[in-house]
Every structure is written in C-alpha cells, then in structure tokens.
C-alpha cells in the first residue's frame, strides 16, 4: 500500500496537468473569437488567463470548479436552494433509503433462495435477467407512474436505487450463505443444531465478508440510481437536477461541481462501508 503513494500522486498530478492543458485547448476558440471581435491581439499569457477564467467554458479549469464548490457549500446557507449541500442532502436521503430497502430485499431474497429449492430454481435466473433490463432507462417511467399514483418525493427515487442495489446483495449473500463447507455443516449437525441455529451461528456470520463487498457495490449503484431518478422530475432539487439544469443553461461549472460532489459522496459512502467492514470483521476475528 505504502509503495503506491508516489505513483498515485504522480498519476493524479498528471491528470491535473492534462486537465489544465485541455481547458486551454478547448476554450481557446471562444477566447480567440472574443479577441477578434474586440480587435485585440492575444498573447499566450493572456490566452491562458482567459481560458482558465471564462464564465461558460467548454471545460472549466479545476480551480474554477473548486471555487464554485466553495461558494455553494460553505458560503451559502444550507437551507438555500442554491446550496450544494441542500442538493446533496436530497440525493443522499434517496440513496440511503433506497440502499436500506435494497439491502433488506436482497438479504430476504438470498435467504429464500438458499433455503427454498423451488425459489432457487425459478427466481434466481430472473434475478439475473432483471439486471439486463436497463432500469436507469425506465427511471422516467417509474417516476411519472408513481407520481400519477400519488406517490412523489423521496420514495420513487428510492425505488430506483433499491432496484439497482438489491442485485449485488442477492448475488453476494447467496454466495456467502452457501460458503460454509460440508464439514462445517456436518459439525453443526453433530451438535444437533436446529435450522435456525445453523443459520444464525454459522451461515450468517460466514456470509459477512461477501455481504460487505456487495454493500460497497450496492451503495455506489444506489447513488447512481438516485441521481438518474432526479432527471425526469424536471430539475427541481438534487445533484441530478443540478446536472440537468446545468446542461439546459450551459452552466458547465455548475455541472462539474455537482459531478465532483457526487464523486465525493460516492467515495465517502463506500469508504464508510469499508470502515464498518474492517471494524466488524475485526471483532468477529475474520480480518
């Protein structure tokens, strides 16, 4: 792990250099255009200064995005409609609700699949097939239909998040609940353990590493679901709405700041699960 700090930093620095260079390259046309209209000649230095400070650049420079994020998080009241914290919270709440629902559904389905042969044979193929339906594609329909049925706000978005996050949980939990080998199951039988005891004392603890791996994937997926679920509501609130509004009005800096916020959110949530995983597995003596 320690050996990769320098390479990672180098790569990240490389990305920033490319980003700044690309900002000059992509925004140059507009800068030249502006200079030609006002009849001035652009020196290289002026060109760079201009391309890094345009209002609606094709690609905003990193510092512009950072400034925008700072202005919309720290310098705005969090109740304000223009605060990025407010929008992040809208998205985060849908993500977390959907994630909780998806995890619950996923675990329930996994238990059913492991313990019921009919369910295993008939449901499991459909659980897999269900993921080939691009749910994100039908997100608008779900939102509008639930809206017509009188359900709006958090729940429709959470439904989409749930659909995206339950699949990794089902797959991981089925694998995990089946991970105790025959020898361990036989051992439980020699102790004349009941079915419930085998489940709580052996199968469930054994599935924990699989569960946490799935939860990380599910959390990331659930955030994507919440963001896309915000698109068809006509850009009201949330990070997805910020993306859509930004694309309507050409506010590239706004798009990028919403994007970075979403990235930070995803990283924080996945990191949090990773932390819980380490603590739990440590206390269970598995890590």
């Amino acid at each position: 792990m320690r050996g990769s700090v320098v390479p990672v930093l180098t790569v990240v620095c490389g990305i920033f250099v490319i980003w700044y260079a690309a900002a000059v390259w992509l925004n140059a046309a507009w800068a030249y255009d502006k200079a030609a209209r006002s009849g001035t000649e652009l020196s290289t230095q002026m060109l760079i200064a201009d391309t890094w400070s345009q209002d609606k650049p094709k690609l905003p420079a990193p510092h512009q995005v950072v400034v925008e994020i700072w202005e919309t998080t720290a310098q705005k009241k969090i109740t304000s409609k223009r605060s990025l914290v407010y929008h992040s919270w809208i998205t985060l709440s849908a993500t977390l609700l959907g994630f909780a629902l998806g995890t619950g559904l996923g675990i329930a389905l996994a238990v059913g699949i492991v313990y019921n042969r009919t369910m295993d044979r008939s449901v499991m193929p459909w659980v897999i097939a269900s993921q080939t339906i691009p749910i994100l594609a039908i997100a608008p329909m779900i939102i509008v239909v639930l809206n017509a049925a009188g359900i709006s706000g958090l729940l429709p978005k959470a439904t989409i998040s749930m659909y995206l996050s339950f699949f990794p949980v089902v797959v991981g939990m089925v694998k995990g609940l089946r991970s105790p080998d025959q020898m361990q199951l036989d051992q439980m039988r020699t102790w004349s353990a009941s079915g419930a005891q085998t489940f709580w004392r052996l199968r469930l603890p054994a599935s924990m590493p699989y569960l946490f791996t799935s939860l990380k994937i599910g959390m990331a997926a659930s955030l994507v679901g919440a963001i896309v679920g915000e698109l068809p509501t006509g850009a009201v609130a949330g990070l997805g709405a910020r993306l859509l509004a930004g694309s309507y009005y050409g506010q590239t800096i706004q798009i990028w700041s919403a994007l970075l916020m979403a990235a930070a959110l995803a990283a924080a949530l996945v990191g949090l699960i990773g932390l819980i995983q380490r603590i739990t597995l440590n206390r269970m003596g598995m890590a």
Partner: protein
Amino acid sequence: MTGWLIFALLVWAGGWWLNARLAARPATGFTSLIIPVIFGLTLIAVWEGVVRGFEISPVLLPAPSAIAARFAASTSILWEDFVQTVIRGALTGYVLGCGSAFLIAILVDRYDFLRRGLLPVGNFVAALPVIGLAPILVMWFGFDWQSKAAVVVVMVFFPMLVNTVQGLSASSSMQRDLMRTWAAGYWTTLLRLRLPAAMPFIFNGLKIASTLALIGAIVAEFFGSPIRGMGFRISTSVGQLALDLVWAEIVVAAITGSAFYGVIALIERSVTFWHPSQRH
C-alpha cells in the same frame, strides 16, 4: 372482474406447484430451462389478471396484451430507435471503450509504476457515478449518436481496464518462470501465457461493460437527443402518457440487454472452456 383475479391466483398457484414438483426432481438441462420459463409466464399471466381484475388504468400500468399489440403495431419506430441507440451509440462506444481499455491495460501492465499509480485511481473512478458526465459529453460531441458513444466509452473504460489489468497478473510466477526458462520474451509470454490466463477476467469486464453500454447510451439521450433513440422515445412517451409504447421500448431494451450479455457469455464459454467455472 373478480374472475380475472381468481384466474391470476389460480395461475400463480398452479405455476408454483408445477415448479415445486419439477424442482424436486434431479436437475437436468431441461428442468433448469423450463422452471424459470414457467415462472416468467406465471408472472405475465398474473400481471394480465391483476390489471384486468382491478381495472388498472393503462396510464399507470398497461396489460401485457396491450404492450404486445403496441409492439407489433410500431415495429418500424422500435427498429429506428434500436439502430440509433444500440447499433450507433452503444455498440460503437462499447467497441471503442473496451478496445482502448484493453490496449491501455497492456501498457499499464508493462510499466509497474503506471500499474501502481493508475490502478487505484481506476478502481476509484469505476465506483463513481460516471453517468453524470453525460451532459458534458453531450455538450462536447453534439446531440447525435457520437456523444452517446462517448458516454459509453467513458462508462465501460474503467471497469474493463481494472479487470484486464487484474487478469494479466493472474498467471502464477511459477508459470512465468517456466516461460523464461524456455527463453520466451515479453511478447511471447504475453500472447501464449498471460493473455489466455487473463481471459476469465477480461470476459468478466466485457460482461459488466455490456450492461453499462446500453444504460449509458439510453441515459445520455435524456440530456439531449435527435428525434429518435430509445431514451428519447421513453422520455417523450412518458410525457404523453403513452405507456404501452414505453413498455414496448423496455421489452426491446431487455431483449437487447439479455442477448448482448448472452452472446458474450457464449463466446466466453468457447474461449475459456478450460476454466473451472465452465466445467459442469
């Protein structure tokens, strides 16, 4: 009205009973195929029964029969959307994205510094909501399919890169030493040992990318699109409450997604026939 509900209940019970009987028998290729099919047909029959029984408005949930009728009536629209979104957008992006990720992966594998630097970053990016880049790419590449292909390239690139790099380190050092004793150079080792050993991982990446590609192409159309394409049709038809057309598009998307995934799985089976997971 209640007749339809009773019908739905009976079909459900009958289908479950049949499946329970079949599942209790020793598994054969036939039963493992027929059981999910029966389950799926039961679901469709229950759907039809419930929609008719409760007289649910077609604006909320159209019956499967209505969807099928609409599907048959608008095949030309569906085909046009399919060509625009799947062939032009998703497939182009998929080929470009997976191809470039594969080449970069070999480069990354060649230089250990890059591997240690780029791989954590790649892992990180793969977990981010990359789909959010769609509005930016639509701005850069215009409204037509090129921007959709670009979104797909970005979405499939990192999962494919991470999987390929991981796969390239799948061969054991003992096997590599053996290649060295045969005086095999880097490229010979790569072609004869490491790429074949990487195939299970590469196909894993290709499979993940296949579902992402379709999603990316459709969602990108929500951010601006010419007047055709599956994402465009879905979002506008929802606005017009023409839900039967939306469901017809969903059927197309589901079939396309499954077929895409299935084709890759089939190729995988013939390429990685030696892998334990393929033995039955």
